[in-house]
């Protein structure tokens, strides 16, 4: 993988206030995919990498989760 791509991932991870471990994992997986050692068609391996990435992402306090601008879904009403 080109150094420009690696550096771009590292700086995007840093800009998102995430740990360098996330960049390392992303780079390692993308390199494996690029050189054909792994494939996105391999469901088990892809799920394992995705679960690991999700696990590595740090989330803010739960209070901040509601600051999203998404509109509401058609949630059912809670029983009284």
């Amino acid at each position, binding site marked *: 993988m080109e150094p420009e791509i690696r550096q771009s*991932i590292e700086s995007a991870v840093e800009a998102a206030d*995430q740990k360098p471990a996330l960049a390392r994992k992303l780079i390692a997986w993308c390199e494996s995919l690029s050189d054909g050692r792994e494939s996105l068609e391999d469901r088990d391996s892809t799920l394992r990498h995705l679960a690991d990435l999700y696990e590595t992402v740090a989330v803010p306090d739960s209070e901040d989760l509601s600051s999203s601008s998404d509109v509401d879904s058609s949630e059912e009403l809670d029983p009284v």
Partner: protein
Amino acid sequence: MAVELRIAGWKAENLRCPDHQVNFERSGQGVWPLALVQMPNGTGKTTTLDLLRVALGGRLPESWNAQRVRQFRKKGSPESKGVFEVVLLQNGRRVTLRLSFDFDEGSCRFTTTLPSSGQKVGFSPPAELRRFLRPDFVNLFVFDGELAERLLQQGHTNAEEAIEDLFQLKVLKSVAARVGEYWEQQVEGQSATESRGLSRRRNRVQLLRGRLLELRGEQRRLSEARARLDGELQARRTKYEDDLHAQDSVRDRIFASAEAAREAEARVQSTAGQVLRDMTNPAALSWRFANAMIELKNGFDRVQLPETAAREFFEELAEEESCVCGRPLDPESRDALRARAGRYLGSEEVALLNSIKSDVALLVSADHHFHERQLVDKLEALDRLITDAERLKTERDAEEESAVRVRPELQRAREEMAGLEESIRALDRDLEKFDSADDSAGDQSTFGIKIIERRLKDAEEKLAQITNTLQLRWKRDALRTILEESIRTARRRLGEEICREANERIAALMPNNSIKIDSVRQCLQLKDQDGGSVGETLSVAYAFLSTLFNRTEHQLPFVVDSPANPIDLRVRASVAALIPKLTRQFIAFTISSERDGFLDPLEASAGAGHIKYVTIFRKGDRVQEATARREPQRAETSDGLLVEGRDFFRGFHLESEG
């Protein structure tokens, strides 16, 4: 793993171009780094390039209908089949891609041959080659002036896509797509995935927690009040009784009458127990039940229940070879025995009926009225005992009443105790509501603590669910943002770097020309101008593509149609000097008029010993044919001649190209 892709050669049979087979392999040294394929106008150069693009791109163009396919048929040929085959070397491994034409059907199909899996119908090159062997990408390395122009044309995205393909930026795009799919899989079936759901659920949990605290607090306060009143009542009662029994004569009378009342109550309890036990016998409730039970027993006696079970007997008999009468049992007889065995009682049923019979005999006397009379007598005795017990209790109360009447402090004490008892009853009524199982009211109107606890548990589970969902969504958004930003930044940085290097090459190619690439925004953007001359465009394209191909670890061939023809003679020498540095394999289709101002500097730059010269021409010019047949390295087919060698190449000239 880095891909090293080379074109080992190709062949065409029964197609519009002369039949030919070219081979670029160099004994023991891979392929020739430079190959010049001279095909005069009318030889089928454009056809060969088109076939190369389709064979490498793996997809038949939409325009290739039956009529178009038939246009590839050799003029005047009776053959109904035609073949175009390209042999590639992928890191030294041979990959053969074949286009098979059926001119009768007007069809064309792919076959792929790999050393590992043999020949397969369809286009199935190794996975590592697929991102290069696509129509769009093939146009970058099987290249002509038209495609060079597209690199600079607004609306065409091949310059940017070339960067994305070569530098694997599309891997980041694919990962971003999978990140989104993963989230969808994880939250599938969740009822709420948005933030308003979170606020509502969090509010409800807080409300229920508050309500539970409030109810438990109130319950505790009331329970404590009740315990306090109860203690007070007990203390008052103890003092009252002490005061009441302070006088010996009074105490003795009250104790005596109380003892008599307790004994009477005990007799009532004992007799009531006997009455209840007797009432479990139906015969005691009415002589008519006794009659019916005896009649049932007599009925059982009359039917003479068997001692052994008949059903099992017949079922076992059906398994025997022959009947008890000696007759052999065939399958039909066995089926009949099994079917009819169901009409007879089984051992468990017989045991139950015999048990009923013996119980009736035991519980019902021969005198059917006996049990009823006995019960009536006991009920009358119980009635008398109750009356007696009530009288004795009244007498005991009267003794106490007469003692209290003469002592006002005892009277007051009793009134106070009655007040306390009433307060306790009121508190008990208030406390009962906390045990209510009524689940129909809203949270604020529900007092059942267990109900509120259950609602809180449900609400906490829902809150946990949506919190997890929203955390996952937040992570998805963060990962997507990171990947999208990575792609944007990488594209910009790579674009800038490639522009800078390409501009250095352009400056070397055209030192007196100020044309420069400004940026890559979908297409190549030229600095301070919209476009260039044909020569400038081609030079810019060469510079861009050579920079691109040289920057990656992958090595691709570069096939160019007329590399120098549209270029000014002044620039030809510079382009010729650049070509050996473009890639490790450069194949150029040329015509004789291109040699001027191009071939000498090319040979000077590459070294004549590193160039393969191939001339292919259609039969018809007898002088050229005769000259060609004198060449040692030649191949002749029904309609064409292929000659390898520098001298023939340089001397070749057709009137039509004059």
